[in-house]
């Protein structure tokens, strides 16, 4: 249910943006969700629908998932994170704090934990559109 905390963060931040930009109503929010964090989209969408305030009454949340691309800093190998390759306990730890990937995941080529998360870490606000 960590998705609720993230949904709250989205609503709070979009409200702050709307305030700053003088939006009376928020029409569309585009959110990117990285696969590394394994966010349950159904729960996220439900939480967003429950948490939205009056300004969000006609909002369309567009949620796109982004594959988690990892790149080894030692041997430059690039690979895609796959949840199926890790056990449930590790998947859950990464779900809460994606950086925990460095504790359990190693470069499949050289075995180093020193990799970069190029794309698809967690939740990101791509755009907010609304009516002034």
């Amino acid at each position, binding site marked *: 249910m*960590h998705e609720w905390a993230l949904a709250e963060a989205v609503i709070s931040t979009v409200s702050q943006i709307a305030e700053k930009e003088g939006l009376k109503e928020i029409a569309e929010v585009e959110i990117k969700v990285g696969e590394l964090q394994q966010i349950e989209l159904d729960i996220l969408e439900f939480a967003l629908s429950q948490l939205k305030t009056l300004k969000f009454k006609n909002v369309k949340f567009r949620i796109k998932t982004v594959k988690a691309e990892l790149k080894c800093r030692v041997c430059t190998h690039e690979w895609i994170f796959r949840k199926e390759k890790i056990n449930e306990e590790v998947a859950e730890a990464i779900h809460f704090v994606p*950086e925990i990937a*460095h504790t359990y995941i190693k470069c499949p080529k050289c075995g180093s934990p020193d990799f970069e998360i190029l794309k698809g870490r967690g939740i*990101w606000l791509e755009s907010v559109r609304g009516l002034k």
Partner: protein
Amino acid sequence: MGDPRIGIIEERLKGVNRIVAVSSGKGGVGKSLIASTLALTLARRGYKVGLFDLDFTSPSTHVILGVEGLQPREEKGIIPPQVYGLKYMSIVYYSGEYASPLRGVDVSNALIELLAITRWNNLDFLIVDMPPGISDATLDVIRLVKRIEFVVITTPSRLAFETVRKLIDLLSELGIPIMGVVENMKMKESRFIQQQIEGRGIKFWGDTPFDAELEEAIGDVNKLLATQFSKKLGEIEKLKA
């Protein structure tokens, strides 16, 4: 466009009266022991206290407290478990006994994530055990936690103070409140540190002794609070709200 997690951090901390970073420029000066003992002492005095171990690559407060096998509860975020009267949060809930080799950007991201999802609710004090140095975690705490106050730890050594001094100067320059400075591992009479601190217009809280019994007390909270170190810290502690 932006990281939505940052916008919720203040909301997550709004029920916390004072947020105190126990910090030092230098490693090995006793930050984690002082942070843990300070948190336990305040909790025993009846305050609502949280302890947050922000030393992600080298967490140690769980060893000091003797915490094993605990996990935070999930409830629209994460609720830190209660440990000896403290709400206690550490990355070890997720990293376990394994090494977490994190670069600065990862430290920042993990820090933002935990600040955004941890529900501390109402606290008198949130004690934050900081990693050594003045890099990512320190800069992020200053950037993201607007009400942060620092307690700075040094030892009598000029080697430690050379680095601690830089942290103090940085915080002063940025206008970040320094509640006081503790001189830990004091072995002989010297007023060098006190003079240096007071010369900068900062409160010198006092000293805590080098205590040979302390190692035996690690992992046992009652023993820890009975040490000369803890008693002395309790006497000089000025965190009375």
